[in-house]
């Protein structure tokens, strides 16, 4: 392959990922509203298009037509920059997540991942840590006490939960002996899913992922009853849409990360024993990845409409006194597994 072919193939992959991510975001907003309606015995949006399927586009259109307000007390450059940081982080993280096994198409061997880097997991952790800047800048630069409180809460929360998140990931890394997401997925061959081998690490990672994406029960940065809207109180129009998109994109990425690290990525256990052809197997594997991500997105939304928000001190004590020791215990558990069974 010469350089142009690599460039074109990469561009196609990037385009595919961005379009898929935007569609996922649009429809997770739609399903957020639908599922909340089902939980409360309502119908949910059903007027715009068939079954209300065009509702997300109507919502976005409405947001774009609104006036873009910047408060007088705001620090204008940072106020503008903040939603772009959030969006940038949300859209670049997906680059390292493998969508399926390598395929052969028109004579080219294509890896179904935008960037097969050998430090993929570090890259994801680094970018999600950057995400905190978007929210903190937004809170600080708005010139409003509600936003500031939201921003401060968010930084404290995300830093606390990043610790237990990192330690849970360490268990996975011990297992696969690699930082590359592709290798991690390949290591979870058959039923060797990390969720089964290290259930404690799975739970701590999922809980930390909820905290990292600011979803209920950890949505203290937004906390409508106390903080009006938290860090995005002073945002409107396109900038607000940016935060909104970033929140749902983060949710999709958290789901994809959970699937990659713990639920075997695109692996379907014992599929090779069915004796299906190469093409069919690959298609089933890619579909299984999307089904797993979809199920996790449903789980995210389901949790949001079931569980009340934690109090701030409960959040902190859960993060440091429960999640952190559990994640440490998980590392010891994984080390013991490796030592005893030589996995």
């Amino acid at each position, binding site marked *: 392959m010469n350089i142009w072919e690599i460039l074109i193939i990469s561009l196609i992959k990037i385009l595919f990922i961005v379009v898929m991510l935007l569609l996922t975001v649009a429809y997770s907003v739609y399903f957020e509203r639908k599922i909340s309606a*089902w*939980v*409360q*015995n309502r*119908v949910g949006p059903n007027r715009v298009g068939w079954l209300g399927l065009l509702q997300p586009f109507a919502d976005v259109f409405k947001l774009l037509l609104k006036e873009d307000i910047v408060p007088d007390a705001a620090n204008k450059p940072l106020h503008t920059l903040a939603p772009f940081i959030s969006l940038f982080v949300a859209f670049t993280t997906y680059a390292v997540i493998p969508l399926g096994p390598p395929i052969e198409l028109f004579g080219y061997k294509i890896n179904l991942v935008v960037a097969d880097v050998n430090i993929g997991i570090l890259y994801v952790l680094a970018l999600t840590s950057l995400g905190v800047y978007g929210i903190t800048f937004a809170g600080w630069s708005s010139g409003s006490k509600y936003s500031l409180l939201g921003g401060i809460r968010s930084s404290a929360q995300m830093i606390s939960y990043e610790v237990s998140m990192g330690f849970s990931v360490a268990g996975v890394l011990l297992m696969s002996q690699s930082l590359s997401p592709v290798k991690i997925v390949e290591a979870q061959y058959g039923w060797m899913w990390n969720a089964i081998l290290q259930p404690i690490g799975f*739970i701590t990672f999922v809980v930390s992922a909820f905290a990292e994406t600011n979803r209920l029960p950890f949505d203290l940065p937004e906390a409508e009853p106390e903080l009006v809207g938290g860090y995005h109180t002073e945002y409107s129009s396109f900038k607000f849409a940016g935060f909104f998109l970033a929140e749902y994109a983060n949710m999709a990425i958290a789901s994809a990360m959970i699937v990659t690290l713990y639920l075997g990525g695109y692996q379907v256990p014992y599929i090779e024993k069915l004796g299906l052809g190469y093409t069919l197997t690959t298609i089933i594997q890619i579909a299984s990845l999307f089904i797993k991500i979809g199920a996790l997105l449903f789980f995210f939304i*389901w949790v949001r409409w*079931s569980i009340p928000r934690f109090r701030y001190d409960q959040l902190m004590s*859960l993060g440091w006194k429960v999640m952190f020791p559990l994640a440490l215990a998980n590392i010891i558990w994984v080390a013991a597994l490796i030592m005893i069974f030589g996995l």
Partner: protein
Amino acid sequence: MAVQKREKDLNILEKLYIPEIIKGMALTLKSMFRPNVTLQYPEVRFEPLASYRGRPVLVQENNGVERCVACGLCSRVCPALAIEVQAAETDQEKERYPEKFEINMLRCIFCGFCEEVCPEEAIVMSKDYELVFKNRDEAIYGKDKLLVPVDNLKDRLEFLRKFK
């Protein structure tokens, strides 16, 4: 301040959160499959029961005359001062009738006191809940809008006889 004691401390399972969270999630999952309660409003309209307090209306007998004798009790009892009655004499048996009867629907709070106090069962709460006005003048309902034939109000009159 006295130290508040909890009635019941959480046990270890409840402190772990996770069993309790699973219980809550099971509940919401169950309710996802319950039938909806939504009415698709403009197509399907809510048909209230007789006990419903919609907008107050004046009862019109079958001969086209209102029951009201313009005693003014409703206007007197109205906590929102929404009703205005002007009495006049008539040759009919009831001797008095309201020359002008106005309810300001922007003030009405649908408490039903006027209906309760009326000695003639002449003002009752209807089932009408769709109240739309384009300006404030339109919100003042005169006799033309308030009079409703007695046949349309049978439900409510029966309900009043039973429970009032």
